């Protein structure tokens, strides 16, 4: 246990990963999680507090080949207003629309939402539907090293990810969805604004002549991490979306999740809502 000794605001990626080498660093992005968490004593700031705001390589939303790259520092507001995102990733816009308040959306970054690793993080479900990858940078030797992994394997538990202490999340990469791609997100809370999801559901895939393939089903706030629902996905894959299959998949989804009781809802309620909303969303997809 060391106490906070340094504040550092690097202006290049190299400086940042160099600083991360000693592994005793707390990274600051928008601060909307870190400020309340550190002030309430839920987390302790490490030996160095590193503010990544002034590193230009970490911002921006661009099309690179067949991928959309979203820099870790892109705010929720920037994402939901960006023409590339609005055109190609409407499901991400849908989720950003339900995120906190305008003030928080103006400050909160995508990378902060991912690294905070809340099972209820609102951008995580659409990013799972879209097969997003996270890119991490570090400096194991004297040179900058980057690697990436699917977001689906990034989360380990509440607040825990596979990011090592020496790594910085630099961006998220999302393959451009192909023709016929559909994706929907539904967040259930008790009031429209500023609410942590009681549950959230995302369903996506390629829809051709009523048949859904490449199916992705993901749930938020029903497990220690945001999760893909493998059995529901399997049951849907290649199926024609009729009433019988929709009922069957909704039941599978309910049995597949193992939520907990907490202040926001009971496990029983969450399971019932997973069932009902999965059914409603699939019906909606079938009718589209």
């Amino acid at each position, binding site marked *: 246990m060391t106490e*906070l*000794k*340094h*504040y550092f*605001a690097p202006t290049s990626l190299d400086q940042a990963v160099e600083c991360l080498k000693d592994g005793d660093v707390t990274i*600051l992005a*928008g*601060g*909307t999680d*870190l*400020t*309340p968490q*550190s*002030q*309430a004593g839920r987390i302790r*700031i490490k030996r160095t*507090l590193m*503010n990544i*705001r*002034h590193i230009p390589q970490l911002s921006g939303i661009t099309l690179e080949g067949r991928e959309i790259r979203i820099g870790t520092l892109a705010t929720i*507001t920037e994402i939901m207003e960006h023409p590339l995102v609005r055109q190609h990733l409407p499901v991400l816009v849908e989720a950003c629309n339900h995120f*906190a*308040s*305008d*003030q*928080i959306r*103006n*400050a909160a970054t995508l990378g902060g939402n991912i690294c905070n690793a809340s099972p209820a993080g609102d951008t995580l479900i659409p990013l799972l539907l879209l097969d997003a990858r996270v890119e991490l940078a570090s400096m194991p030797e004297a040179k900058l090293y980057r690697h990436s992994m699917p977001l689906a394997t990034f989360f380990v538990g509440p607040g825990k990810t596979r990011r090592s202490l020496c790594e910085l999340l630099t961006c998220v990469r999302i393959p451009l969805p192909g023709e016929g791609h559909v994706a929907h997100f539904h967040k259930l809370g008790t009031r*429209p*604004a*500023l609410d942590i999801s009681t549950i959230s559901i995302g369903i996506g895939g390629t829809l051709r002549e009523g048949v859904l393939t490449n199916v992705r089903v993901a749930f938020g706030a029903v497990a220690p991490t945001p999760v893909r629902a493998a059995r529901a996905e399997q049951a849907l894959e290649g199926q024609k979306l009729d009433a019988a299959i929709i009922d069957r998949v909704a039941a599978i989804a309910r049995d597949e999740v193992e939520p907990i009781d907490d202040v926001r809802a009971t496990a029983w309620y969450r399971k019932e809502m997973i069932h009902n909303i999965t059914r409603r969303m699939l019906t909606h997809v079938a009718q589209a």
Partner: protein
Amino acid sequence: MSLKHDIEFTLNGVKRQASVDVTMNTLAMLRDVIGLTGTKYGCGEGECGACTIQVDGVSLNSCLMFAVDCDGRELTTIEGLANDSKADALREAFVEHGAVQCGFCTPGMIMQADHLLHKHPHADAECVKRGIEGNLCRCTGYKKIVDAIVAAEDGQRTAP
């Protein structure tokens, strides 16, 4: 001893320097270090919007922002807007519509309304309601506030 850091930023158009605790938030800096108390402390955790300020042209909750993160940036608080003739229409509309009762939420509400009108010059009541979702008011029931913001916009649009 808590770690301090020197920062320099623009506050309401004037260059400022401050030596702040690295773990301090911007709201505490404004009120306790600089001495500008127009920005209010309501909840300290992003729920009420009483602490809303503008940084580099967007509105945010100063209680959710590290003070060191102000370094090199441009801040506007209610004190800055109060001296800005561009905000006259908004101020007059709040008075005219009775949108102020105890007044505690008002500085944050005005800062957010000003940002909203910049972004959506033709905001209707629905748009205004969405824009102030992060601002709580315990007195007015919101209707008068929404009416005032919509009217301020009409006023600005028809102004010569």
